C-alpha cells in the first residue's frame, strides 16, 4: 500500500457515487430535474421529462406570441431541452438577453412552460403549465430608457 490516503480516496469516491442518488431524489422533487439525467440511477423509472416552451412578448401593454426564426428559435429549443433536464435550475438569462436584444420595443417576456408528464394516479398524459414573466432590466441588455422593474 503506497499510502492510506489512496484507500481513503478510493472509498470516498465510491461513497460519493453511492450517496449521490439521495441528493438526486431531492433535486427531482424540489427543482424538477429530469429523473433520467445526472446520474441518479433513475433511468426508466418514469417517462422522460418533456418541457415545451412558448414565448410571449409584451409591447406597449399588448401581449403576443414571439415569432422566432433562425438562431433565436434554436435558442428557445435549446432552453426547452435544458429546462427539461435541469428544471428550475435552468437559467433563462442567455435566452432573455437574446430576446430583448432582438427587438428594442419588447418591454417584457413571458415564458409559458408546459411540462408533459404521465400522471401516476390516472396513468394519463397530462400537461402542467407554469408562466414566468420577465421585465426588461439593465441586466438583460436594454437601454436605460427602456428600464422597467418589478
Amino acid at each position, binding site marked *: 500500500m503506497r499510502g492510506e490516503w489512496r484507500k481513503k480516496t478510493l472509498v470516498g469516491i465510491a461513497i460519493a457515487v453511492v450517496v449521490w442518488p439521495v441528493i438526486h431524489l431531492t433535486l427531482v422533487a424540489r427543482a424538477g430535474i429530469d429523473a433520467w439525467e445526472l446520474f441518479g440511477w433513475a433511468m426508466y*423509472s418514469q417517462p422522460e421529462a418533456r418541457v415545451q416552451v412558448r414565448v410571449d412578448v409584451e409591447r406597449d401593454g399588448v401581449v403576443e406570441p414571439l415569432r422566432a426564426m433562425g438562431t433565436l428559435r434554436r435558442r428557445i429549443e435549446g432552453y426547452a431541452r435544458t429546462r427539461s433536464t435541469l428544471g428550475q435550475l435552468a437559467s433563462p438569462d442567455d435566452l432573455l438577453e437574446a430576446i430583448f436584444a432582438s427587438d428594442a420595443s419588447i418591454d417584457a417576456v413571458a415564458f409559458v412552460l408546459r411540462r408533459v408528464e404521465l400522471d401516476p394516479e390516472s396513468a394519463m398524459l397530462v400537461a402542467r403549465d407554469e408562466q414566468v414573466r420577465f421585465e426588461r432590466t439593465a441586466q438583460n441588455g436594454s437601454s436605460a430608457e427602456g428600464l422597467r422593474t418589478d
Partner: protein
Amino acid sequence: MNAALDRLLDRTSRDDDTVAVAKLQSMRRLVLMTLAFEGFVALRYVPYSESPGLHAAIAAALGVCTLLGWMERFALPAVLCALLLELITVASVFPHNANHQFLAIALLALIALAHPGVGPGPRPDPGDAGSAVASMRWIVLAGLVWSGVMKLAYGYWLGGEFLSYRIALDPGFARVFSPIVPDAEMARLLALENRIGAGPFRADAPLLVAVSNLTWIAEIALPIGLLVPRMRTFAMGALLALMVAIQVGARELFFAGLMLGGLLLFARRDLVRRLIPVAGVSYAAWLLWPWLTRAASSGASS
C-alpha cells in the same frame, strides 16, 4: 478506521493480489475502449454533432488513450488523459450527458488511484488494486439497488404504467414484450397516442404487471445477494441475465458494457477479460450500424 474500511471493502468479496491486479487491468481496458467507441458514436447525435471538430478530436484522443492504456507502461498517463477528456466532454455538453459518462469518470478515477506511477513495469499496487476493485463492486451493487428503489419511489412500475407507456410509444419495447402481452391489450396500447389526454397507460395483462414488479424487486434483492458469499455466484449470474434482458429493450450499449464489466468483478477469476472482445465487437457493430444497414438496404434494392 483502516480496519473498518477494509471490512467494508471486503464485504463484496476479497480477491488475492494477482486476481485483483488482473481485474483492474481488464476494467481499465474495458472502460477506455468503451469511451473511445462512444466518442465516435456520439458524433451522430445532438449536442455532439453541433461541434463535430471538438468531439471528433476528443474521440480520436480517447482512441489513442485506449491503445496506450492497453500497455502497462503507459497505463497511468492514458487513464489520466482519458479522465481529463471525459471531464471536458461532460462539461462541454452539460447538462445533456449520458449517465454512463459519470460512471466512467468514477471508474477512471478509481483505476488511476490504483496505478502508482509511470515508467517501465509500474503494475498497479496489489493492495490499491484490491481496494479499487472493491470500490467498483460497491458502486455497481449500489447502483443496481438504487435503480430498483427509484422504480419503486416514482411509482410507475407497480401497475406496469412505465412499460405500458414505452410499449405504446417505442416499437422496440412493443416487439420485446409482445410475447407476454395479449393481442387485444397490445392493440389498445399501440392505439394510444403521444398527446395530452391520452391514456390510461396502465397494464391489464397480469404477466406484464408481474414482469414490471419483478424487475424492481430483482434490482433490489439480487444485489443484496452479492454480499452473501454463498449466493454470490447465483446473484451475479441472475443480474447478468437481467442486465442483458433489459438491454434488449433499452439498447444502452455503453452503459451495459460498463455495468456488465462491473458485475463480472464479483466473479472469483478475472472474467472481465473475456467480456472485452465481446464488448469490442458489439461496440464496433453499433458504430458501423448506419453503414451496415445502408449497405444491406442497397443490396436488397439492387
